[in-house]
Every structure is written in structure tokens, then in C-alpha cells.
């Protein structure tokens, strides 16, 4: 069986495969001896079907805390308190977030 990560990379960088129909991509993956999970994910158009094969690892995607009322703040890594606090006087930042 071919490695699913290798196949995903191959699909991602090939113009003919990246936008191929599910049917066409399914034939290519069949020939490439892809895993049943990858073939099922492509057929269903649902990448969550890869979860069992790749691991159901929850991933957080928020990487910024300097918005939402905390624009002018500096995190204090020496402060072990994790209690949520509402900023008393949130100060607009001149920092760019774009």
C-alpha cells in the first residue's frame, strides 16, 4: 500500500490531479495502491474519513491573542494565572494583523 502522505503531496503539487474529478482521481489512486481510507475520502469528498488512518489529533488554529480587546497587551509569561480577564481599558494597537 502506498503511503497516504506521499500521495497527498503528489496530488497537491500536480495540476492534473489537484483539480481532477473524484472519479478520475479514484482511478489514479486505485492504480497507486492507495489506502482504502484515502480512496473513500476522495470518493465521498470528505477528508475526515482519513481521520482513522492519520489519527484523530485535534488541532487548534487560533495563533493570535492580540486582537479582540487585547491589542495593546504584552503577554506575561511569568504570570501563572490563567483566569480569564476582561481588559479594563482596551487600547487600540497600531500593530498590523494583515
Amino acid at each position, binding site marked *: 500500500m502506498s503511503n497516504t502522505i506521499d500521495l497527498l503531496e503528489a496530488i497537491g503539487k500536480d495540476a492534473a490531479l489537484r483539480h481532477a474529478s473524484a472519479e478520475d482521481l479514484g482511478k489514479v489512486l486505485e492504480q497507486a495502491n492507495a489506502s482504502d481510507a484515502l480512496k473513500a475520502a476522495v470518493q465521498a469528498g470528505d477528508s475526515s474519513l482519513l481521520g482513522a488512518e492519520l489519527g484523530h489529533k485535534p488541532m487548534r*488554529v*487560533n*495563533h*493570535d491573542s492580540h486582537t*479582540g480587546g487585547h491589542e495593546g497587551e504584552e503577554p506575561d509569561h511569568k504570570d501563572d494565572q490563567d483566569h480569564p480577564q476582561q481588559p479594563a481599558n482596551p487600547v487600540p494597537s497600531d500593530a498590523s494583523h494583515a
Partner: protein
Amino acid sequence: MRVRLYQALPYYRAMNTHLSAPANSTTRGTLACVGLGMTLGSHLTPLARSHIEQADVVFAALSTSASEMWLRRMNPNVHSLQPYYGEGKSRQKTYREWVDVMLAEVRAGKRVCGVFYGHPCIFAWSPRTAVNEARAEGFVAHLEPGISAEDCLYADLGIDPGRFGCQHFEASQLLFYERRIDATGYLVLWQAALVGDWSLTRFETGPAYKQVLVDVLSADYPLDHEVIVYRAATLPIDKPQIRHVTLRDLPTTAMTAEDTLVLPPATALKPNQAIRQRLRILDEAHSLA
């Protein structure tokens, strides 16, 4: 030997030219924070890949476990930053810890690469901070851009931000501050799933919070105005997710942190007659000169 047509082109010749970098004679640490792009296999730049492959240690804040596994193909010494998140733990503390753990390796003389999904400067505090602090301590540090969710949004929705203009806000900023919305251009709202969260401990708020956002937006947009809920493809077997809802229905529309709101223009551009007249006078003066 048969030479293909493309091989005669200078660009393709350059692609196959390999140079040897000078040997690193110093043990000083370095830091590069790079973007992995949004879609596995499609978006990683050659320079970002080179930073990853040449690093002694790689730290990763990515959006899918598949991307982390892909990253380990480029460099086996990958440390995920995901475990630093915690339920009820302020994200401010998490992001400070990310900076500290990267800089500790730089100070130890390592070539360090921080890899962030999308673009390392967009809605990501730690890469910028780590690079700034590394430079302040005299280390060589780089930020390398990646294809961001914003880049994908323009392509997938067919939007040119130059046509009518385009404002971007973190959604909560619209609630916490008095911002001026220009409804003649596009409005893009990021992190709307957790709109109104002061605490930095939640990853979603809920319908009541989104209703506050709708109430704020309704000052500039009718409630039947179309809102696009957009999510870029992260795996190459995915398609971008594009949902059309009315502003009125936004509170009951399911969203996650990956979703972005796009509000198309609600009103037509209004000509500025006074400035146009002033420019006409200038044109006439220049044509007479």
C-alpha cells in the same frame, strides 16, 4: 540526447542548477519562521522548504495532523506546538511559551525553524515576536511568507480587493471598538466563530455572541444581505467550503475557527464630485502648460 523544449528555457535551466552554500563556520543559533501555506503539497515555497530541511530543530503550529506528518518527511526533528494549548488556559500564555521554547533552542546554538500554517505573520503573534526578540539578542532571524487563507479566499471567491476596496477585521474588534465600516467595499471578518470572547480561553462562542455581531453589522448592511462563510482547502483532496447565508441567519449558522466571513459591497461607490472637479482643473492647467 533528447532535449525537451522547456529545458531550453532559462527559467527551467535555473530550476536544475544546484549551488553549494558556504559552510556555516559559526555556532550561533538562527531562527526562521515560515509559512507552510494552506493546502498540503500545493503552497510551500522553495525557500520555506529549504529553511525546514536545513534546520536542526523544527517547531510546528499547523492546522491538520496530516500537515504535521508531511512536515516530518522534510525534517524528522519536528516538535508540535499544539500541546501548549490547554482547556481554560489563556492563549496569551500559550503563545509566550511558543516564543520561549523557540528562542531557547536559538540561544543553544541551533538552527531553528518555526513552521506555521498559512502565513507566519497573519493572525500569529509568536513568529513575529520570536523573530524580533532573536534579532534584538543579535541572532540572524527571518520571516518567510506563505500562501495565506486570505490569498486562497481571493482566488476561490474570485474577488479582486482592488476593485471596490476590502477591509479586514478580526471579528471581535468590531464589537470591542468603534470601527468605521465602508459598505461600498468588501468586508472580511476573521475568527468570527469566537466573536466577542474576551477571555482568550474559548475557541467558539455561540449564537448569542454572533447575534451581537449581526446587530453591529446591521447598522451598515440590510439583514437580507448575503454573507459568504468561507474556508480554504487544507488537504488537496478537499474543495474550498463556500456557504451563502443572509446576515439575519448568521447566528444560527454553524462555524468553526477556520471559517471566515465575507460581506460583499452593500452600496454603490459614490463619486466624489468636489475632488473630481479639482482634478479636472489640474488636468486643464497641465494641458495648457
